């Protein structure tokens, strides 16, 4: 991603990654998923999105995405027998090379935010290195970057 962090509604520079999520406001339009798959793969292909909307129609949906600092205990890290998941500066990231595809982190994640790709490697949101592509797409601000939200932006 180019441009200063926060320029498109992301977190301000230096802020820790994390989302503020208000599922009541989610319209299920999937723009976050469209943006995510585009930024990660160059195509609109929703299974590649690192954020997903779990429909509970007609009740309010749930957003499946990594909460980073907002996740108590970050159980995915300890669950990984290959020690492929680590947290640095608040970024919980998966080392794709080290991942064995065992699926333990999928089970451990309380937000159903980790999935296996076609090569059986675990993947999840990486917060686009500070400027998440999904956030500015959310017209209702059901999804906001934590730093920006704290500043009231």
């Amino acid at each position, binding site marked *: 991603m180019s441009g200063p962090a926060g320029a498109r509604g992301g977190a301000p520079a230096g802020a820790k990654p994390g989302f503020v999520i208000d599922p*009541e*406001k989610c*319209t*299920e*339009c*999937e*723009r976050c998923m*469209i*943006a995510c*798959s*585009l930024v990660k*793969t*160059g*195509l*609109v*292909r*929703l*299974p*590649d999105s690192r954020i997903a909307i779990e*429909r509970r129609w*007609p009740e*309010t949906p749930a957003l499946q995405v990594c909460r980073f600092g907002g996740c108590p205990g970050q159980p995915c890290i300890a669950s990984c027998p290959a020690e492929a998941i680590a947290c640095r500066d608040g970024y919980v990231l998966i080392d794709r090379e080290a991942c064995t595809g065992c699926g333990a982190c999928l089970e451990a994640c309380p937000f159903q935010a980790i999935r296996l790709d076609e090569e059986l490697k675990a993947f999840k949101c990486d917060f686009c290195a500070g400027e998440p592509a999904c956030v500015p*797409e959310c*017209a*209702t601000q059901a999804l906001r970057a934590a730093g920006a939200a704290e500043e009231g932006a």
Partner: protein
Amino acid sequence: MSGSMWDTLLRVDLSSRSAQAWPVPQELAACIGGMGYGVKILADEVPPRTDPLAPENKLALSVGPLTGTQAPMQPQSCIVTKSPLTGGILNCYAGGFLGAELKFAGLDGIVLEGRSPDWVLLLVEDGALSFHDASPVLGQGTARTEAYMKERFGPGARTLSIGRAGEKGVAYASIFSETRTFGRGGAGAVLGAKRVKGLAVRGSRGVGVAHPAEFARLAAENMEQLARACAEEFNLVGMFSRVGTGAGMGLVNGRGALATRNHEFGSFDRAAEIDGYAYARKFYTRAVACFGCPVHCGMLHKFRRADGSESWLRGPEYESTFALGSELLNGDPVTLAEANQLCEEYGMDTLTAGVTVAWALEMGEKGILKEPGLPLRFGERSSILGLLERIGERRGIGDLLARGPGRAAAEFGRAALGAAMQVKNSGFAAWMPRRMKGTALAFATSNRGACHKRAPIGAEITGQIDMDAYQGKAGLVKGIQDRVNAIFTLVSCRFHEFVTPPEMYPRFLEAATGRSFGLEEFERLGERIWNLEKLFNLGAGFSRADDALPARCFEPIKGPSSEAAVLEREKFEALLDEYYRLRGWDRDGVPTPGTLKALGLERYASLAGR
């Protein structure tokens, strides 16, 4: 493939239960997609005199170059078929998620032909089709049918279905798709005649575009335009975004243009009880959007039915609050919501259903129509719900009413027919031709009958232009018809054009497909499609007499707010003459050889059968 299109349609022969991928020929690809594909396929392959419910009729479901991309407000898919309601060519649209899923399945559309030996559910998975027994859901409503398909084919499947009205051949049966509707013209009856109860689509392919950077820039620019519109208090799209399409009823009522009591009156004293704001106040839970749409005009309401049970309804849409509300003198939001649910359950167009019920209620009050055990009175809950149910079942008087307002009324003579608010047997949309002269012309000349999607409604109702004037309306209507036909090739939501500058469409198109289009060329395609539809309709037996409004439209509106409004027959006919001239059609509404040549449609001249 070219950019965002796969250049592949799935051809399904239901009679032999076979399917094959069909590479889109270049000549069809030039029609862009959506409505362009559907109309050309029908004109090429279905003789205009074909019985709409015969196996020889075809149903084309298609999407376009913007479907499944990041461009906002492009969720719709298009169905084109020969209409059992009008007997002419039909195009209808539903939002939701089905269109994008078709793209993800590697298809630009599906063409159904023939008739299945048994009732089937169709499943399309990444371009491959399978047939499944529909008997577990036969006779079921649309919501249950679609829930069953999701259970059977996976929760990620996107679906469409018909209800009992489609199974039984109600002429204005609709097709539902997860609370969005292919509403108009009876496509549900065509699907029913083919013995297709539902379709589920699952796709895992990625959709790209020809020029990704330019496309992303355009999408971002368009998103900003929409965000600005949504933030404006009096922008129509902004109002839809906050309270849904029902937001405008107060405005329309105030202008004496809210069709009330079978179009006799132009205002309804209980409008404020059934408009978008009333539903928002009483029943709002949250807004729900179609695929990729930041406007989220769908309002999900939770209410208590008259029997005390808790229930949900996405809507009602504005048009339904007219057809099942003011038009029936029904000011009860719960009865209206239940009537809407009945239409969903049975799978019927709320507009033509409501307008037909309005006519029946008037005839009932005049003593011309009777139904044992059912009072026929305006505003009466049991009358409204009872008639809708009888239509859905084609039981009792419902069998007559299921033919459509024009055909039902024709059984009772001229006066009764003049009170049936229809064009080409398709019920009026929520607007009063007497108040809005451009809309009058649009209703009369629409190829699919009494259509509001190609009428200058916004400009007339908001007062941008004088709604009572005739001057300039012929050119205005022609322009809208051509432009909207063009954007229905993409397939854009009708509301997208309210906000998006016209010159953006060819830019989007080029960035998506790599094919260069000028704005004039793009709108010219819309005009070609309009003329092709017209030729089909002429071949089906239509004439100038079908570009006509019911007699009621030429009588003064009753009630205090609209007493001056009247449509004068001579002026209306002169307007129609002017419109035909601008179209390059003769006085009977037949495109001249010169017009067909200019549009490159010479080889379709014989379609008109003249």
